[in-house]
């Protein structure tokens, strides 16, 4: 199985996207036709406030960038033009692939189905371990992209027998307007929407988004503000607030915790995390403790030892969480889903493949315990 980075670089649908994703180009200066093409991607942004002297304050994420005329926010894909704020990446897809939903990973959402997975350039944080930094830390003009408006995106998902569209790879918060419109088009076409996000987003846009999407997987980078400040360049509390909101709105949610050796791998942190999830989200939120691979700005660290992942799982199991997984370790038994009551394996996996599904209408076929999730 290739790494996600290899996949992002190579996995393009030839019928949709030409060239490789995230490849730096020596583009010629834009001529008139190309300028018109650029204009297709530019749509007035949602969630911002106008300020004096043509400044704007972005209200999409807690960073709340204050942006002068002709400048962009931290994410690099939203720009102030004469006091009006625009997204530069509506329908501007730089990466697209058909993936098993388990790869996102969603283990309790439409198992065995395919997700039409897309991204634009940009991100509102800068995680030192980012697997997709070549697109997440890029500005849209720096990566090849194709115009894929919402209806075409939804149609492409259907044509490829995908049960869902996954907004992923970079950070879908920053392509919010596109994601919102795409989710609406997808719903009309009978395609679900699954969001893979760091959840560094304000409450209002989150609530609006939840009206249109069907599942959210949150990358909870750590359970310490120190890590969020030093490694992510973000904040922990807004992410936790977002998780609570997702629970309150009844949104299907899963959590990935990428375990980075020496930085967020203490028992103390695992215990605090597990206790918080139990208290604030409940026992049924799946948690994936996932192996880190050296990337981007953390190439000096080793991959996560398996013992560390198993230790994290043991802590979370001891806290009573029902669905705790070990991720990025193919064939590990903790990739399977076990009934929280009778402890039998109700979903067996090998990597991203479902080997066996022992559920009847969302219940354990052995003891009839309801297994939390969206199974169809």
């Amino acid at each position, binding site marked *: 199985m290739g790494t996600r980075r290899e996949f992002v670089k190579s996995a393009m649908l030839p019928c949709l996207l030409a060239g490789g994703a995230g490849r*730096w*180009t*020596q*583009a*010629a*200066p*834009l001529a008139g036709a190309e300028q018109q093409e650029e204009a297709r991607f530019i749509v007035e942004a949602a969630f911002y406030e106008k300020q004096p*002297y*043509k*400044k704007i304050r972005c209200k999409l994420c807690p960073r709340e960038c*204050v942006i*002068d*005329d*002709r*400048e*962009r*926010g*931290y*994410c*690099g894909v939203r720009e102030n033009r004469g006091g009006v704020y625009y997204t530069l990446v509506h329908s501007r897809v730089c990466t697209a692939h058909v993936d098993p939903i388990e790869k996102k990973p969603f283990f309790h959402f439409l198992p065995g189905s395919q997700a039409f997975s897309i991204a634009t350039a940009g991100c509102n944080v*800068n995680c*030192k371990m980012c697997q997709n930094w070549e697109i997440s*830390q*890029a*500005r849209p*003009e*720096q990566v090849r992209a194709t115009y894929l408006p919402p209806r075409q995106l939804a149609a492409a998902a259907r044509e490829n027998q995908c049960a869902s569209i996954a907004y992923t790879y970079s950070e879908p918060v920053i392509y919010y307007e596109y994601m919102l419109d795409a989710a609406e088009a997808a719903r009309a076409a009978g395609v679900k929407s699954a969001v893979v996000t760091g959840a560094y987003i304000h409450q209002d846009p989150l609530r609006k988004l939840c009206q249109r999407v069907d599942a959210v997987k949150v990358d909870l980078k750590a359970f310490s503000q120190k890590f969020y400040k030093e490694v992510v*360049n973000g904040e922990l509390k807004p992410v936790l607030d977002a998780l609570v909101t997702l629970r309150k709105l009844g949104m299907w949610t899963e959590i990935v915790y990428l375990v980075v050796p020496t930085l967020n791998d203490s028992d103390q942190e695992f215990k605090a995390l597990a206790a918080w999830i139990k208290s604030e989200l409940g026992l049924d939120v799946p948690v994936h403790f996932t192996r880190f691979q050296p990337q*981007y*700005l*953390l190439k*000096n660290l080793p991959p996560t030892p398996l013992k560390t992942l198993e230790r994290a799982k043991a802590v979370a199991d001891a806290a009573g969480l029902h669905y705790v997984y070990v991720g990025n370790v193919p064939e590990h038994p903790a990739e399977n889903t076990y009934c929280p009551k009778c402890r039998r394996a109700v979903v067996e996996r090998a990597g991203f493949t479902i080997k066996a599904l022992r559920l009847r209408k969302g219940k354990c076929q052995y003891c009839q315990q309801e297994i939390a999730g969206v199974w169809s």
Partner: protein
Amino acid sequence: MGRVFPNRRRFLGLVAGSLLTHSTGRNARASAPAAPAKSRVVIARDADLRGAGAALDSGRLLKLLDRSLQSYFATDSPPEAWKRLARPGEVVGLKVNCLAGRGISTSLPLVEAVCERLQQAGIPARNIVIWDRLNSDLESAGFRLATSPDRIRCLGNDALGYETELTAYGSAASLMARALTEVCDAVISLPVLKDHGIVGVTMALKNMFGAIHNPNKYHVAVGNPYVADVYMLPPIRQKVRLAICDATTAQYEGGPSYMPHWTWPYNGLIVARDPVALDHTGWRIIEKKRAEKGMKPLRAMQREPAYIATAADAAHRLGTNDPARIQVIEV
């Protein structure tokens, strides 16, 4: 994140130190270290730079440029001054600052004057490249894009592209503009004299944000230590030979955007090799104007450019912000 191995200056310092230790022996006395040389900053002004109207007088601007460079390099001849900056055969990049469009960008007449003097110093037109972040920025400031290899080129990073491997120092990790890494052998930085709404001021140090692919990531924390760390990236440190700050029009509030009601005709150029000394000097000019206009200092606005001090600290040593070590020469 790992740092780039000790820069050349630190390396030489370490070697020099070890040689001194070796040579003293048991009975030798070490001589007192020489006082560090002052960083020279030349400020050249011309009250009649605009003649009767608002437009810059190209002839007077050329003379102003000559006066500043000759003073800085202590020569009588303009070509001799420019020969100190670049050798025949080298490709010289002129990193302009055009973000704000016409009004508070590097002015065309200044760039034309620089190009004229470079050619007279033996740099052919084909070896001069005017560059900035985006083609659209250049055009908005009045530059005409040009890619013909036989003439002076003028184009943005979006045309020339970026490296594919990261270059890192401290908090900065970026893909460098190929204009800097592959096209140019030497760079003359041509910032403008203006404040900045997030990082305080934007001049010589911050002008090199145009050499990286991700400047939007480095405007947090009032740009500190990011502006200093970006300037430490080896291609920048190794190739930028001089900064000529376009202070013909300066701005004390509302930057980086053009806010005409907050500009004033400073009618000057500020020249230095030391980007820290230049920025410190320019910052003082802006603060003085702000005080004249009854505006609060940048510190009171939570945007004091602390990155200037960081650029001068022991870890960076990009220059000096110590007034006692800056020689300001007004001509």
